[in-house]
């Protein structure tokens, strides 16, 4: 017990760090405050070290969930002196803006055709309740959200699901490009009831097997949600790791328990990402990091060019004809149901219920042009808008209203303290200027343009073509 007690003491110190910050700020330097300050610095040092050990980039450290007091999400939002939530909201906006600025602003190369196997840990350790309501329920909930969002951003991708239960890899859902199909398979939690030991090797071998036939231009990815600290394998898992490297399968892990050497090795050697979830929100963040199509790095692109395999190749695709509701009914090839509406394969004329899909008869990949268009915003992102800091960048002719929504700009009241504003990336004038078309937009429109619409409202206005001179 003595070592455990010592650790407890450390965690207490970490805990007191967050609680005492108020006292330190409010106190007038009395004895109590001095004492807690000492404890605070000690706790900080420990916390930093712990963060380094686990390789997490999160600034705020937390003790284990069972040691923390019950967290109230409404406490996280701080009111300012006036009792208004304005500053808290602005802080959130600024955070999103900073994250966007880190992203690339020019056309970049991404893997658009993705194939992902999601491996779910269904072992007994998933019944732990350190994440509420339980690791298992939370995983299912987030997996559903993940799949919906993933298909929204990767309309040409396919997802399959493999479960790890009772020492076996279990195929939960075959590779499919239809989100409804995939969601149906994980909608029933009774069928997936956790049980027994997990086997990483079996599950990854199964995932590898189901991706072996894929063409070279598509990505092969495996994402493991792993809640255990053990793996019960029939053979040497390092052979599996070598095979994954050879097949260029990218393995990523989201661990719910702690870091394991073999998990990290998988991620490092195959180019995936590794993360340990600190709490429920962090778990979701880690999982959703895998949604945007991965950037094809120079190294990966040249590696592919190796054995007579160009990094860019042409995929044969068919663009279907949509049958109207008034067409004569016919049997579809996918469900053998009598239907009037549907799509016709341009090569063999088979009737399909939904696109995108592979034609069941001739194997042609059937997409509509709008599915291709849905991926374009990853390839051609909108440039981040410049934050206007002072009035010097304005001229007399600058309009006083947002170019998009025609509402007047809201100048913030604390413009007299400009020292705080630049760090947050918020404009005191409420103006954000597009570097290409030079128009000013308000904060709301800026967020909407970059996060939802991916179109600058005035960059695409047709311009007279300059005469070559």
């Amino acid at each position, binding site marked *: 017990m003595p070592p455990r007690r010592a650790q407890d003491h450390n965690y207490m110190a970490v805990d007191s760090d967050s609680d005492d910050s108020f006292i330190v700020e409010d106190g007038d330097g009395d004895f109590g405050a001095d004492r807690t300050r000492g404890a605070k610095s000690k706790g900080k040092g420990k916390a930093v070290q712990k963060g380094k050990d686990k390789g997490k980039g999160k600034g705020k450290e937390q003790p284990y969930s069972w040691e923390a007091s019950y967290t109230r999400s409404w406490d996280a939002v701080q009111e300012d002196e006036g009792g208004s939530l304005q500053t808290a909201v602005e802080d959130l906006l600024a955070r999103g803006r900073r994250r966007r600025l880190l992203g690339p602003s020019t056309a970049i190369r991404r893997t658009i055709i993705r194939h992902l196997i999601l491996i779910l840990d269904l072992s007994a350790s998933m019944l732990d309740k350190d994440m509420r309501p339980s690791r298992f329920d939370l995983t299912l909930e987030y997996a559903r959200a993940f799949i919906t969002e993933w298909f929204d951003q990767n309309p040409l991708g396919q997802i399959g699901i493999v479960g790890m239960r009772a020492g076996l890899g279990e195929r939960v859902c075959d590779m499919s490009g239809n989100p409804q199909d995939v969601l149906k398979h994980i909608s029933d939690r009774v069928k997936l009831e956790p049980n027994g030991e997990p086997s990483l090797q079996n599950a990854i071998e199964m995932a590898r097997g189901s991706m072996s036939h894929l063409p070279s231009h598509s990505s092969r990815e495996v994402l493991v949600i792993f809640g255990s600290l053990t793996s019960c394998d029939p053979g040497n898992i390092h052979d599996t790791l070598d095979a994954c490297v050879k097949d260029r399968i990218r393995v990523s892990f989201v661990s719910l328990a702690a870091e394991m050497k073999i998990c990290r090795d998988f991620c490092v050697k195959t180019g995936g990402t590794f993360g340990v979830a600190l709490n429920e929100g962090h778990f979701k963040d880690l999982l959703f990091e895998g949604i945007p199509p991965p950037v094809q790095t120079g190294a990966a692109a040249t590696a592919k060019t190796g054995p007579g395999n160009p990094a860019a190749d042409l995929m*044969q695709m068919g663009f279907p004809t949509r049958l109207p509701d008034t067409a004569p009914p016919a049997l579809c090839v996918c469900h053998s149901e009598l239907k009037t509406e549907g799509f016709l394969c341009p090569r063999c004329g088979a009737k399909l219920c939904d696109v995108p899909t592979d034609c069941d008869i001739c194997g042609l990949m059937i997409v509509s042009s709008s599915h291709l268009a849905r991926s374009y915003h990853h390839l051609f992102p909108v440039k981040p808008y410049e934050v206007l800091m002072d009035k010097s960048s304005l001229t007399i002719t600058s309009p006083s209203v947002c170019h998009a929504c025609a509402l007047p700009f809201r100048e913030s009241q604390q413009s007299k303290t400009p020292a705080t504003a630049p760090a947050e990336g918020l404009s005191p004038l409420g103006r954000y200027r597009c570097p290409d078309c030079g128009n000013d937009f308000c904060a709301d429109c800026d967020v909407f343009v970059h996060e939802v619409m991916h179109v600058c409202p005035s960059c*695409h206005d047709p311009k007279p073509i300059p005469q070559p001179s």
Partner: protein
Amino acid sequence: MSHLSLLLDLQPAAWHDPTQSLQFSTFLAHILVFLNAHLAQKHENSLAIFGAFPGKSIMLYSSIDQTKPADRRVQPDPNWYQPFKTLDAALTERIREEMPQPSTSSEAEELPVALVGALAKALCCKIIQATKVEAPSDTPVVMPESRILIVSVSPDAAASYIPLMNSIFSAQKLKVVIDVCKIYGPDTTFLQQAAYLTGGSYIRVEKHESLLQYLMMCFLQPPSVRSLLAVPTTDRVDFRAACFCHKDIIDAGYVCSVCLSSGSDCF
């Protein structure tokens, strides 16, 4: 309560053509009757009108923002419902100000209209309006039903394909229905897809003199009511892609795995 954004395609070349059966003044009169009918349906109904001119897009009228100086010039008339009068006066005045004369602007007339800009602005306004509605959150918030009606007279502009599709997808995410009323010119595949993807109607006006009837029968009802009515829907949609090299429409072809450009055998 429902919100209507009207996008008017004001291509001077199409509207000043004397051989067309529908004159611009008649067209404007029909549109105004339709808009008045929308305002008369419910007191809370809101309206925003955008004009797509060659090379620029302008917000012509918004019932949300009442601070426009144009409102002050309207004299109250006891024999006229005030919102109608405000709208009619403001819209006609703004169009007169902004509409370029075909004779004076010879090279600007060649430009395609800025439909993407107008659509993007309409969607931005929808977002601002949504955040405003949510602000007093004592009562259960009823989000206004939103739809966009595009009155189109010009053909597709190939250069605007990607931004237009991006706007359509964001409309789809925001559950904004896009209706298209095509008056002149060839059918536009892009707008057909917009109507199909957002669950709206694409209707081609065959008899120009009865434009008002088309507008009242097909586009006046908010989307939630339409399931009870037999409103024409989009039937034929061309989902084929255009070959990037010759702009031919192709059935099956090759797509580049990096940039997703599609091509035929000539690749």
